[in-house]
């Protein structure tokens, strides 16, 4: 259900009356401004007030730009990996049947519910120095990727699953009766219909990976130029008394978030393109 798509709205005031509607609107906008907009405005203002030159200087510092490059690099990698694994998991959950499927389906939500620092710690325990498997990826980029895969797991699965559930099976049967093999049915019928959902999930996973902090802070070791991502860099700059540096990088992350939201809106628009 597209939240930004235009929907017919009944005459105003249907729920709370005309005066109540105005009040509701006022409260809603006021609350949102107080909680979200004013702090973000303060952030943008604070980075801007020092001048564009300082802003540029801060984001191009070697440590800052290295963290940013690493963040974008691993986020793209993790998002792309999720595109494949997430679609595969969604497929298994919708089209396959096996005992315990309901439990597996519930477990997918675990990364949404589990505090990120707990996620980081449990991964460190299994794949860190005291790993019972002898697999130690702590303080390495691999560990970073692992933590991000954990926290971003549900996005593609949950974006693809409902679309796959509602996909008209007769389309696939029709294609099969017209002589298409299994691969052709997937490539020409299923995949094009899933693609917008996959991309939406990938975009969300990407946004989450770019901003992730709690799960990477323990496992990555935060080694500058090696495993330090932007969110950790920002936290470090605050602690070492350089809020200007933190604010500059934060504004960049904020822009990336806004870009992702726009992209998701575009994918949603695209998904419904044949229904208009």
């Amino acid at each position, binding site marked *: 259900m597209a939240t930004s798509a235009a929907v017919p709205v009944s005459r105003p005031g249907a729920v709370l009356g005309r005066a109540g*509607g105005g009040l509701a609107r006022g409260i809603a906008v006021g609350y949102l401004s107080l909680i*979200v907009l004013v702090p973000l405005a303060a952030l943008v203002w604070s980075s801007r007030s020092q001048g564009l030159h300082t802003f540029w200087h801060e984001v191009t510092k070697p440590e800052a730009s290295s963290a940013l490059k690493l963040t974008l690099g691993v986020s793209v990698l993790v998002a792309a990996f999720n595109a494949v694994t997430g679609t595969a998991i969604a497929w298994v959950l919708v089209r396959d049947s096996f005992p315990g499927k309901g439990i597996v*389906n519930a477990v997918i939500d675990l990364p949404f519910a589990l505090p990120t620092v707990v996620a980081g710690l449990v991964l460190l325990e299994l794949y860190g120095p005291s790993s019972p498997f002898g697999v130690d990826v702590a303080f390495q980029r691999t560990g970073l990727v692992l933590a991000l895969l954990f926290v971003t797991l549900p996005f593609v699965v949950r974006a693809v699953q409902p679309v796959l559930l509602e996909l008209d099976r007769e389309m696939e049967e029709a294609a099969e009766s017209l002589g298409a093999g299994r691969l052709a049915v997937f490539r020409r019928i299923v995949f094009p219909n899933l693609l917008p959902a996959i991309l939406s999930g990938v975009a969300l996973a990407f946004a989450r990976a770019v*901003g992730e902090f709690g799960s990477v802070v323990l496992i990555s070791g935060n080694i500058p130029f090696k495993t330090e991502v932007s969110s950790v860099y920002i936290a470090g700059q605050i602690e070492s008394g350089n809020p200007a540096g933190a604010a500059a990088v934060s504004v960049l992350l904020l822009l990336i978030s806004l870009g992702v939201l726009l992209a998701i809106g575009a994918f949603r628009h695209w998904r419904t393109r044949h229904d208009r």
Partner: protein
Amino acid sequence: MTAKHALRFGALGYLALLLLLPVGLVFYRTFEHGFHPAWAAVTNPQAQHALWLTLIIAAIAVPANTLFGVVLAIALVRHRFPGRGLVNAVVDLPLALSPVVVGLALYLLYGTGGWLGGLAGHGIKILFALPGMTLATIFVSLPFVVREVVPVLREIGTDQEQAAETLGAAPFTTFRRITLPAIRWAVGYGVVLTTARAIGEFGAVSIVSGRIEGKTETLPLYVQSQFEGFNTTGAFAACVVLALIALATVLAMRMFRPNDASLAMPFGGRGGSAGTAVLTRFGRRKGYGAESNVVKEEA
């Protein structure tokens, strides 16, 4: 082994290695030396204080976001006003934004030299205290109730509300007797998600709290400080408490929506073709999807 089985075992193996084994191992490590060390670790005063603080913050943030979430959802679905598109986008922002950026924004707003930094001089301490941590938590957990209620409000439409109005119901009566019962499951579900996020929030709270041990340390922050202080038993025990809350959350989510695939998906991720005819054939398709929820909600 067929392709189908390969895919099944691949997917399940991936989930086991990434999700179940790590979480299971921490449970095992916590109770490795029996129940008592773990119990002692979560009942020491510092842990108790952290748990208490976490619960207080959640007790403020969750009702606030529930109340305003419902109002926001109604304003977004049932009203047209200038800036509605912007409000809609801003509601989604906390889901796509780094918690560290959220923390920094509050830090700059309420810190020394910030727009509202003067409050501290008047004895209103926001940063490094409960109010700041609560504001950070409200920020990051704001979208969940809104995002759950918006699609349900859309699906139910305004027919019933208008019918009630023609029968002489006052606007608030219509809301209480018609709208609220229809959205209560969505609200309940949103509350579960909000609670999970409020209890588990780490990054934003970490920055605005100043992390003063025994004072502004929530349970997730306690996990980190214990782990870094080499008290792994304490860290694991707190982890188990948080993981149990998470498991309860997942169970509650399933109870609210047993068949819905797109649980917890931000941006109204539910496939959302409420009008799609669900074709039934033997053992082929079940009444999944949005419609079944509505039916359940009305039942």
